């Protein structure tokens, strides 16, 4: 999400006649959540701090939002943290990885999110790792959770995040010789412009829209 947005419409290059052109909105909160986090989140954070001496260095932010705990992890420490979460804190399952592309966050455009599940304790935690578009490398967690194999291939396919150490990082949904990574924000949706009695309806990503 952008740090700052202007106007209400997605139109570019044409005049905005709505009167909302001067509207400026800022979004995206930064910083950690203050303790207590509530629920089992404090326990998870305590246990992780105890089991992992480098906690303060590896975990840059701890965010609790909408009843979900997110740990922002430095990408170089991801595999270490993952292993401790699995072995010491009993997060036996990783439910995959999802990518998000924030073109305006310079230096941290690509984000990978790992939802973890503990069957033993019935708890959930999310890991968030950010990397730059220019250096889209994140270490693979397939050696920790083998089930992330296809998920990482999908995120590579869709976002171009290269998971170092993945046993076979190839495209999975798009054809092997496809150019580009479709889920990036600068990749157009495409679609076929519809011609109707001389007037043309542009493809969805080209239309003027509300934001």
């Amino acid at each position, binding site marked *: 999400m952008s740090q700052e947005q202007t106007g209400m419409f997605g139109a570019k290059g044409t005049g905005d006649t709505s009167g909302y052109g001067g509207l400026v909105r800022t979004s995206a909160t930064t910083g950690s959540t203050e303790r207590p986090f509530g629920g089992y989140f404090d326990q998870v954070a305590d246990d992780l701090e105890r089991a992992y001496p480098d906690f303060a260095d590896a975990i840059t932010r701890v965010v609790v939002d909408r009843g979900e705990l997110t740990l922002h992890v430095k990408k170089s420490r991801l595999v270490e943290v993952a292993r401790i979460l699995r072995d010491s804190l009993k997060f036996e399952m990783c439910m995959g990885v999802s990518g998000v592309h924030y073109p305006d966050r310079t230096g941290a455009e690509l984000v990978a999110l790992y939802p973890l599940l503990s069957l033993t304790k019935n708890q959930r935690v999310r890991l968030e790792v950010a990397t730059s578009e220019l250096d889209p490398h994140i270490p693979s967690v397939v050696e920790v959770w083998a089930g992330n194999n296809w998920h990482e291939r999908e995120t590579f396919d869709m976002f171009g995040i290269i998971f170092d150490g993945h046993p076979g990082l190839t495209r999975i949904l798009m054809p092997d010789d496809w150019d580009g990574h*479709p889920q990036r924000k600068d990749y157009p949706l495409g679609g076929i412009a519809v011609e109707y009695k001389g007037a043309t309806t542009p493809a969805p990503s080209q239309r003027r829209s509300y934001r």
Partner: protein
Amino acid sequence: MTFDPYATSRETTEGTVFSVTGGDWDSLVSEIGESKEERIIVNMGPQHPSTHGVLRLVLELEGETVTEVRTGIGYLHTGIEKNIEFRNWTQAVTFATRMDYLSPIFNETAYCLAVEKLLGITNDIPERASVIRVLMMELNRISSHMVALGTGALELGAMGPMFFAFRDREIVLDTFEEITGLRMNMAYVRPGGVSQDLPAGMTTKIRDVVKSLRKNFEDNAKLLIGNTIWMKRTEGIGYLDLAGCTTLGITGPVLRSAGLPWDLRKMQPYCGYENYEFEVITADTADVYGRFLVRMAELEQSLRIIEQAADKLDKLEGQPVMVADKKIAWPAQLALGADGLGNSLDHIREIMGSSMESLIHHFKLVTEGFRVPAGQAYAVVESPRGELAAHVVSDGGTRPYRVHFREPSFNNLQSTSAMSEGGMVADIIGAVASIDPVMGGVDR
């Protein structure tokens, strides 16, 4: 060596490779007879009647033993997640419902629960809406399990169970049609509630449906449970134990067949599942037969939940099915007319005739949509195939910034090789059928 256009051979670093695409088998066998190796690579699918849709399997065989299975997917990729980013929050339901086409209500509910979490209105959803969601999900679970059982049996050569299963599935789909107007892809669950209330007298009909389904299910149970041929095709086949399931992230009936009673409806209840009485079914065999038994027994549990939901609905008669906030709920009360679902005539009369403000509000909400506060949310439901999750990110606008679906079919299909390698080639079919992958969900 004569030239055969259907069985060409070429020299590679690994020796002679024969490509067989049809034609005279005898001439091929005589040609291969000269070499001692029996390694055969078979491409199965993506157009194959036994692979549950457009799934491609590349099998490496030694005689009839499978030494390696590679799975190829992506043939049904439709870019649903990308498309959703260009529609407003309500329209996205129309896309989400089309992913796993056998369990549309689950797709919709997972997405809507995530959006409601982002909006912070999870506790404001009217009870009647939640009960209707539960009712629809459990009906959907039955129709989905019916396809799993019917096509699974058909792929292993049993024709009868498929007829019974699809007969029962039709009963459920007819019920869907009566409630939503559509048999599949209903876009019935919306952020804030459901699109419309049940038609009058529906709970009575649902009780009749439950009665006839309960009787009908006996047919398949009699046909298959304990059937010698069925047991020989399924027992000990496609084995995947609990450790294998957790490391591969497997959920749903496959996990429960390994003995762990993990069901999100019990463990992390949503939509008020904590208020229903039902059991989590497990098996201890971790094989295809165990998964079959789990699905069969889950049907009865779903019927129990449906009965309880019908009772609750009778008590909640006349209560709203959409959140009260008019900035989120669509202004019109939809009504089923002679020509299908549309705006209620009363509402059109009001906005066109008497209240311009209502007209403006209606126009803004439908064309522009509502705004969702920035942030991210992750909502899970127990779909017929396991944990279905929606990870939804908002930038504070009228459209989803990013929606990712954690599809259980996609994840569980990874276990194909673990289940099949070392077994017989014919058992791959049973193993894949027991995972019950739906390619629409796998590829999205």
